[in-house]
């Protein structure tokens, strides 16, 4: 395939990515750009050329050990979810834009620690980028020339131009805003797109190999199992290999958190914590899909391809050998996508770190302080763009100088070992307050030295002085210092060996120094804010401790330079409103200092922000003890607040209860008043009648007939009075449970018959029929007289409300479990719906009576209810019955 054609394809592909990035930047809010899948796909930037090509190489030579570095992330993910949420929240709270920022801030916003972390990242990532360039360059060569063309210089090397194109892309879309915490939608969208492409293309080539070149996996297995070293390719290989597996898993576990590109996509670009829930199962699924065909492609390459080709590129060489050019180009583009996404995100993350943690705090801060906002934003962007170009060029140089002998897999692992040096200070920093900046620095420094000695010294030594025996004899001829078999552990792979010793020495030093030294107050302050971030989430600026002198005008001036006047004023307005501070306050407090630091952190990184603020304020040192006390107080104040809130809630609940009890009492009181009123009225009526009659009877001229009538009235009213008094007393007795009830097993049919007998006369007079057919003997527990009273009452009510001649009253008895139920139904006027609620109330008299003047005291049903309740029974009216009234009462059965 022609050189130029391939370049043309690459340029076309890059243009497509530019277009996607543009689209995403334009449509930031669209659901195509803003969704959890983009987040998960951007996490898949973990899969680079190393995965795309390198895994096949490893699988073809040493079997399934390539899987280890994917197992780490998969194992890590459930834990990752918990840790990530904490990391994301802290980062958002503190406006953190890179891992260097994160670690430096955790240890008291330490400038040199930030720089050290950045250098570690550079050491880890530049070779890694070089590895990607190597993959591009080698695949490019494979595609274009079959007979091993080697470029003669930089200007002749297409890889160089491709690198420059990538740098332009990153610089263009990565530095649109000077605030590094702003989400870079365009870049993220392209990364997601690339993640899809690399996976799909790899799956396509996998299917091609397995199902086109071979007859399915079974066929492939049969053929490969006849090869001589098959045993080695398909087994774990003993306990020593087990250790190597273990270390590889640990390495990748740590790397998924610490690699700058992973931190960038997972933390800095995270928009919504909820995305983590999708990531926790989608990301492992992605890794699984990516690894399905690796082993088969490796086997196929071993069978079909000559042994002298580079095993890493089996997936490219297999279709090439068959002459399937289009497929080959597709595989190449998949690999190129993997490369591109890795380089783009890595350089983006690294350039932020380099500018915020090294270039600005160590060099440019003075220039920036004197500049105006537009100039500063421009300068910051320029610094970052420069950093991007420098990084890519550095990676290119590394690739030219060193990577010829190393495989993709080896460089990848070395890169992991170096980045893992950040592990102790990062992970311990999240949970352990004692860790100090000094310990972190010494730990990382020592870990790096050990890693370099064990990993690079043999190569460097042989480069300087070929024929040196450093690796076989050890430093100064001491065999236990052999770089790749330190302390005589000779069964570990060089990388496992390097990881074991570097990380142990790092961890050991970190812990010992932390325990034996005291951090300064600032370190302790941030330690508290990171470890117990939940406590301070609500306090925000309140958790930051600072004492000293600073003027609001100075701070505003400073913010003006970087944010511009408009943004500064808006920010100050928000701040004042949030803390209820008058706009004319002159001196700044800790909250304003912290608030401003965070504002500047987005653009400049935390280190520079701190330096800038200390230039406009005079900070007084605080003793560590004082800081601890203040933190304790803040926490206590918070706890007290909570206690007070709880107490106040309790009190208001109690007040509510009291209020309700009071209302109930008032209600009872009112009821009692009403009752007395009604009683008085009911008593006064016959008394008035008697009194009036006796007065008019004085008239001697009154005719005899009339006189007799008046005297009869007096008699009836007296009787009425007597019944009334009896009923009132009865009801009081019943409701006070003072009535003596003679409850015994009795035959209900007999009682009903007696009740009917008592009322028969009136019924006959009004020509009302009473139906009752006694069934089998039913015994219930009750007081004969009282139930007779209830029945009589119900029957006389029915009589009152039914028409003469046509009235029919029926009584029946049913058994329901442990109760008997007596029903009295009539065909009278029934009970109006709105009255159902009241008919059992004392003195309630229906407005629906047949007889003009209501007869009776209004006590009847109230007494019935009291009686039934004192029998553990119930009485109610059926409000669904419309053909008259239907009353029911229940009594416990006799056992």
């Amino acid at each position: 395939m022609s050189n130029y054609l391939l370049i043309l394809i690459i340029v076309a592909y890059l243009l497509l990515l530019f277009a996607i990035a543009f689209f995403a930047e334009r449509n930031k809010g669209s659901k195509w750009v803003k969704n959890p899948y983009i987040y998960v796909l951007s996490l898949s930037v973990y899969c680079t050329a190393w995965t795309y090509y390198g895994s096949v190489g490893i699988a073809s030579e040493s079997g399934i050990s390539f899987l280890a570095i994917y197992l780490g992330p998969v194992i890590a993910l459930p834990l990752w979810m918990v840790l990530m949420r904490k990391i994301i929240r802290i980062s958002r709270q503190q406006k953190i834009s890179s891992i260097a920022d994160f670690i430096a801030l955790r240890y008291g916003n330490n400038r040199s620690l930030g720089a050290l972390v950045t250098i570690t990242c550079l050491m880890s990532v530049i070779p890694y980028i070089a590895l990607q360039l190597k993959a591009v360059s080698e695949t490019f060569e494979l595609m274009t020339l079959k007979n091993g063309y080697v470029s003669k210089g930089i200007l002749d090397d297409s890889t160089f131009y491709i690198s420059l194109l990538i740098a332009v892309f990153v610089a263009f879309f990565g530095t649109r805003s000077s605030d590094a915490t702003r989400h870079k939608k365009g870049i993220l969208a392209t990364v997601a797109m690339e993640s899809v492409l690399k996976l799909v293309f790899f799956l396509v080539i996998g299917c091609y190999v397995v199902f086109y070149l071979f007859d399915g996996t079974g066929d492939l297995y049969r053929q490969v199992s006849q090869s001589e070293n098959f045993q080695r390719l398909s087994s774990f290989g003993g306990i020593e290999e087990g250790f190597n597996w273990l270390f590889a898993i640990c390495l990748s576990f740590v790397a998924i958190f610490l690699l700058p590109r992973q931190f960038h996509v997972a933390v800095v670009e995270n928009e919504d914590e909820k995305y983590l829930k999708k990531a926790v199962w989608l990301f492992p699924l992605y890794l699984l899909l990516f690894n399905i065909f690796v082993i088969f492609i490796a086997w196929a390459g071993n069978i079909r391809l000559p042994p002298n080709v580079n095993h890493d590129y089996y997936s490219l060489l297999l279709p090439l050998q068959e002459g399937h050019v289009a497929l080959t180009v597709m595989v190449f583009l998949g690999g190129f996508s993997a490369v591109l996404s890795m380089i783009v995100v890595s350089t983006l993350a690294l350039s932020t770190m380099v500018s915020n943690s090294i270039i600005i705090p160590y060099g440019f801060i003075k220039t920036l302080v004197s500049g105006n906002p537009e100039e500063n934003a421009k300068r910051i962007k320029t610094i970052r763009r420069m950093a991007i170009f420098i990084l890519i060029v550095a990676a290119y140089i590394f690739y030219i100088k060193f990577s010829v002998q190393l495989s993709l897999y080896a460089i990848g692992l070395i890169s992991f070992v170096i980045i893992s040096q950040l592990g102790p200070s990062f992970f311990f920093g999240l949970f352990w307050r004692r860790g100090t900046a000094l310990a972190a620095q010494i730990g990382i420094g020592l870990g790096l030295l050990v890693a370099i000695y064990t990993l690079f010294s043999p190569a460097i030594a042989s480069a300087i002085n070929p024929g040196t025996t450093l690796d076989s004899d050890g430093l100064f001829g001491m065999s236990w210092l052999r770089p790749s078999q330190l302390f005589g552990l000779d069964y570990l792979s060089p990388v496992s060996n390097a990881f074991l010793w570097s990380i142990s020495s790092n961890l050991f030093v970190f812990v010992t120094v932390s325990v034996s030294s005291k951090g300064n107050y600032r370190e302790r302050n941030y330690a508290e804010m990171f470890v117990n971030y939940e406590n301070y989430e609500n306090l925000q600026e309140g958790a930051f401790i600072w004492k000293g002198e600073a003027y609001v005008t100075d701070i505003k001036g400073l913010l003006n330079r970087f944010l511009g006047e408009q943004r500064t004023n808006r920010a100050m307005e928000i701040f004042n409103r949030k803390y209820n501070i008058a706009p004319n306050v002159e001196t700044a407090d800790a909250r304003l200092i912290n608030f401003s630091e965070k504002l500047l952190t987005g653009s400049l990184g935390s280190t520079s922000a701190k330096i800038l603020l200390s230039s406009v304020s005079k900070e007084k040192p605080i003793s560590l003890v004082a800081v601890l006390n203040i933190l304790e107080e803040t926490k206590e104040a918070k706890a007290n607040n909570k206690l007070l809130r709880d107490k106040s809630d309790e009190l208001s609940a109690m007040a509510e209860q009291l209020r309700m009890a009071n209302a109930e009492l008032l209600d009872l009181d009112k009821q009692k008043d009403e009752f007395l009123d009604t009683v008085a009225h009911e008593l006064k009526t016959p008394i008035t009648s008697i009194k009036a009659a006796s007065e008019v009877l004085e008239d001697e001229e009154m005719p005899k007939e009339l006189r007799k009538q008046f005297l009869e009235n007096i008699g009836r009213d007296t009787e009425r009075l007597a019944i009334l008094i009896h009923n009132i007393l009865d009801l009081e007795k019943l409701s006070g449970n003072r009535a003596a009830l003679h409850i015994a097993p009795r035959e209900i049919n007999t009682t009903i018959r007696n009740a009917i007998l008592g009322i028969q006369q009136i019924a006959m007079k009004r020509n009302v029929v009473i139906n009752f057919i006694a069934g089998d003997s039913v015994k219930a527990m009750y007081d004969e007289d009282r139930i007779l009273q209830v029945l009589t009452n119900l029957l006389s009510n029915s009589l009152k409300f039914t028409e003469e001649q046509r009235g029919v009253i029926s009584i029946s008895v049913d058994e329901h479990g442990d109760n008997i139920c007596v029903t009295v139904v009539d065909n009278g006027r029934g009970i109006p719906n709105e009255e159902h609620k009241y008919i059992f109330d004392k003195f309630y008299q229906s407005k629906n009576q047949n007889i003009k003047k209501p007869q009776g005291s209004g006590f009847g049903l109230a007494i019935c209810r009291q009686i039934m309740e004192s029998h553990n029974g119930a009485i109610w009216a059926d409000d669904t019955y419309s053909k008259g009234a239907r009353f029911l009462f229940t009594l416990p059965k006799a056992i």
Partner: protein
Amino acid sequence: MSKRKILIVDDEPNIVMSLEYAFKKKEFEVFVARDGTEALDIAEKQVPDIILLDIMMPQMDGYETLRLLRETEKLKRVKVVFLTAKSKVSDMEKGLQMGADGYMTKPFSVKKVVKEVEEMIH
């Protein structure tokens, strides 16, 4: 001079009977109503000189009856005396405030009622 007209409104026939007898004896033309609605009907037809009004009655109570009486143009100036078992001071105040001309509590003396009425419409 035509006969003085009195309307007695109460739902207790026995009480009404005694009052009716006493007023007839004094040459009153007596009308009887058992509740507010009936009272309004009769009052409108007869336009009595005075109305004795019970408060606690079924359907329409005495307060409501008085309000409606006062709203009717030709009944506005008719004297109304509450004759009720409600003996609390607050009830009395309420009654007078609503525009009653007298307030007498049960149990009452028939003679005293007659005397009061005669004085009122003198």
